[in-house]
């Protein structure tokens, strides 16, 4: 079973088209194994990305170097997955 310990979901806000382009560049970096929950399209539409723990530093550095604003939407995805599973078990019992 896939675990998401330490995976974070970042909400990224782009200020202009150039930053949208940068985000598209980030989307093509397969080695980071990013999961775009919402893909980059317009500056006014934020992007949500699930970032594995091992890629967190690289992604945050990329965003900061390009002056792209972000905040952490989900701090530890596995916690939410565990909570969800526990809730299902509770409801069944």
């Amino acid at each position, binding site marked *: *079973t*896939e675990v*998401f310990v330490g995976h974070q*979901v970042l*909400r990224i806000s782009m200020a202009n088209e150039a930053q949208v382009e940068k985000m598209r560049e980030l989307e093509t970096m*397969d080695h980071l194994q990013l*999961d*775009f*929950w*919402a*893909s*980059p*399209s*317009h500056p006014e*539409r*934020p992007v*949500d990305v*699930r970032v594995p723990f091992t890629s967190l530093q690289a992604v945050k550095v990329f965003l900061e170097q390009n002056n792209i604003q972000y905040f952490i*939407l*989900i701090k530890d*995805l596995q916690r*939410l*997955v565990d*909570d*969800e599973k526990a*809730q*299902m078990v509770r*409801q069944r019992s």
Partner: protein
Amino acid sequence: RALSVETFNYATYHTLNEIYDFMDLLVAERPNLVSKIEIGYSTEGLPLNVLKFSTGGPNRPAIWIDTGIHSREWVTQATGVWFAKKIISDYGKDESLTAILDKMDIFLEIITNPDGFVFTHTQNRMWRKTRSINAGSSCRGVDPNRNWDAGFGGLGSSRNPCSETYHGPHANSEPEVKAIVDFVKQHGNIKAFISIHSYSQLLLYPYGYTKTPVPDQKELDSIATAAVTALSSLYGTSYRYGSIITTIYQASGGTIDWTYNQGIKYSFTFELRDAGRYGFMLPANQIIPTAQETWKALMVIMEHARDHPY
């Protein structure tokens, strides 16, 4: 196992078996209103079950609703379950829904991507695609919302089997898609097609693969305005609406672009709650409010389809 449709817990997420059992319960309890149709099998051999709500009459004009084509979007399957219960509860009580069902059939596919859905419960909660094997690649699955024959393979879809938006080797390569395509063609009288996704609170109409507006844009936009107004009236949830390409991004090979091109004028797709706090991990206590508000918008679309035959 729930003993009846009444005691089924609508406020929690369920497994595939639980939902399939629920569908059987529904049919057993209301056989004069609901039946179950098997429209095909998934890649891994699971049945593709569709609930048919009908008060009789051959090949009536129909409304299609599907939920969960992207398997990780759990709130959509959960709302599909709630819709099924809502339809049987309201028929005969709610004047408007009764009038819809006296004139039209409703088809509801709650688990559109069963392989993916099972996979999200057992192996990877974040799985989005189908589970088909891609020749020459170790990556599995195709994005079933890029696999339709409408601008297939164009911008806004990927040729890389490892991508979440991989369009597949050819249009309708996924049995989950092909089954709906065959069903829609064979039926020939579907007048409204609503495909439900999550999240980001949008109500969208075609097109996604081209910037060319659909000929019915004005009408679809006015329906969307009314639907979103109705939806927001319940809990104040704010929705945006418009064509896929102008409202979110270019997406080729999408479901409702194909259905619209097949002549189904009232083709819409929803992106349900939330606006980004939990994404695909929407807590179960939000299932019922999400379903309730979405139902209001659905009713607007279904009423319009009922009152504007074409």
